[in-house]
């Protein structure tokens, strides 16, 4: 057939997985070490999902935030090519700035995204062990207007009890998408589970009707979490129920 010759390109669809990582001073030591270790180990798994997936290929981007925030690379890279560079921990927790930066790049013209046709909604994994020290509200408000963010799979990992789970719930839009870990081993496992699950579900054509991809991810991670010692779903008693009312 001649309609699909060299002059017609049919690119693969893409799904971008964002790691948004707290590298403030309190993360120093074993926590940041575990994060580095876990991400390095999960990348080959993501590559495998990408390679064996007929629907889409997976790209990875990582944003670290402490006193300010910065991208590991200035473009999303294929999982197979993403080389993790260990991040260091020091400084404050500028989650508001990170939200604004994420908003900047969740766009087609000046950012990381391609045309919405041919793309799947991104997956965003936020890791933090503390509370924002900057104007988180302002940053999140801007981010919440972003169409890509609205349709993204959003999951947060709260490291320890000092993590502000209310803030994380507001980022993900629901407290059910906030998973808490209490030890280093659990942290490593949950990063793997969350990254793999989000990528699997995020890079599939959706035919599931009313269940959003985010809900599917939450369900699967919740199931997996029962087998991880020291990890739990944020309980429903926290105050995020009122934020839901305001959506």
């Amino acid at each position, binding site marked *: *057939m*001649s*309609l*699909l*010759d*060299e*002059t*017609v*390109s*049919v*690119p693969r*669809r893409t799904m971008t997985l964002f790691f948004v990582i707290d590298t403030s001073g309190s993360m120093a030591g074993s926590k940041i070490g575990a994060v580095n270790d876990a991400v390095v180990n999960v990348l080959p798994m993501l590559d495998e999902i990408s390679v064996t997936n*007929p*629907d889409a290929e997976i790209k990875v981007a990582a944003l670290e935030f402490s006193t300010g925030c910065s991208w590991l*690379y200035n473009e999303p*890279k294929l999982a197979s*090519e993403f*080389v993790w*560079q260990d991040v260091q921990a020091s400084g404050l927790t500028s989650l508001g700035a990170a939200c604004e930066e994420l908003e900047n790049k969740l766009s087609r013209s000046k950012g990381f995204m*391609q*045309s*919405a*046709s*041919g*793309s*799947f*909604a991104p997956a965003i994994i936020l890791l933090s062990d503390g509370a924002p020290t900057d104007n988180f509200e302002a940053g999140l408000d801007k981010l919440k207007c972003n*169409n890509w963010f609205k*349709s993204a799979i959003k999951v947060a990992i709260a490291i320890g009890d000092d993590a502000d789970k209310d803030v994380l719930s507001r980022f993900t839009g629901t407290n059910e998408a906030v998973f808490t870990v209490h030890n280093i081993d659990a942290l490593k496992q949950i990063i793997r589970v969350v990254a793999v699950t989000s990528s699997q579900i995020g890079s599939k*054509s*959706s*035919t*599931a*009707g*009313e269940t959003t991809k985010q809900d599917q991810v939450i369900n699967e991670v919740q199931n997996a979490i029962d087998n991880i010692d020291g990890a739990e779903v944020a309980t429903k008693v926290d105050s995020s129920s009122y934020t839901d009312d305001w959506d």
Partner: protein
Amino acid sequence: MKCFDFHCQGESHKATDKVCQDFSYSHIDEDGLAIAIVCDGHGGKRYFRSDVGARFATEIIANNVKEFVNNIDETLLVGQPFTQQAAIQTEIARQDFRKERPVDKAFRQLFASIIGQWQQRIERHAAENPLNEKENAQVEEQYRKEFLSGYKLEKIYGCTLMAYVSTPKYWFAFHLGDGKMISFDKEAQWKEPVLWDDRCFLNKTTSICDSEALNEFRYTYQGDGEFPIAVFLGSDGMDDSFGEEANLVNFYVKVAKSLVTDGFDATFTDIKETLPVLSKRGSQDDMSVACVYDEARLEEALPKFILWQIAVTKADILAVNRKIEDAKDRRRRLEAMGGHAEKEQIELRYAQSDIARGYAEKQQLVKKMDILLKEYYGDAFVPYQDEVGIAEKERVLDWKMIEGSSNGIRLVLVWVEKE
């Protein structure tokens, strides 16, 4: 005027034994009324009769458009300049207090009649067709219950719709939901004739089953004598297969050229073969295309279509060249730094692979360019060439003189391109 349309089951639907939920239609009658329609039934388990909904929508649009054209006061449309109307949203989203003109009221009546008759039709269908064996086996309980309750039946049949209509005196087009409509003018310039609705994003779309469906119609009309020379309507399975819109447009340009050079039958056969392949390679989704075109004017515009493709390809080549040059710059900088730190090593490898990927892409583009140049200039065409080339020149390590400040001239070992 000529027309065609085709719809086929998506690759992923084959796997799960789901029928094609797209429906398409095209027709030209003896009075010169041309219609092209594409309706795309929603995927998702809730919308388990969306294939029926899409078929009904198509039939109703075809009938109602004919009646509309036969009865409307032509003076409402004749003489009108190219006019686009967006979906109506609440004041928060838009500050549009345009006065509704008689022509807008007429369109609103047409759209209301489409929704109204579709609603009646699906209600009747649901009453006459209880859940069948397959539905009982496959549909989740909550949606079966929804069906049995008769509440929000429209969701079960939900679909998007778009249509292009032309008469000898005017044309109009309307759209509700996603998918893309592309029109070409006599200069072979393309546009989306109907305004986009930002609420259609990724897998979200507005729909005939929405409670505010009437306000979600976007439409365009023109009666000042200007007509598109070809209009293509494609379901979202099409645009999702091509990613960037320029790729989709390029495909339609290929079809347009083929209609001129290979004729209608060959092209239509080709479309029927291509769409399933495209679904497999691209979106996996159902695919449909409907088209209305003006043969004579398309033929006149043929060279311009090729020129457009050449221009687009040229722009792509220049973009790749910039990427290659940029990666080479990075490599040069990193090599000069010695490249010992781990971070530098990583960046260097990225620069290398970016260069390699850039050249691979370049080769494809140049190949495409040469095909197009040949098409345009004939066998005497001059193959495309530029200073960046299509492959990196071999590099060798060589000594290079560096003028130091204190200890005079110094030799260092660097990579240089072989002459």
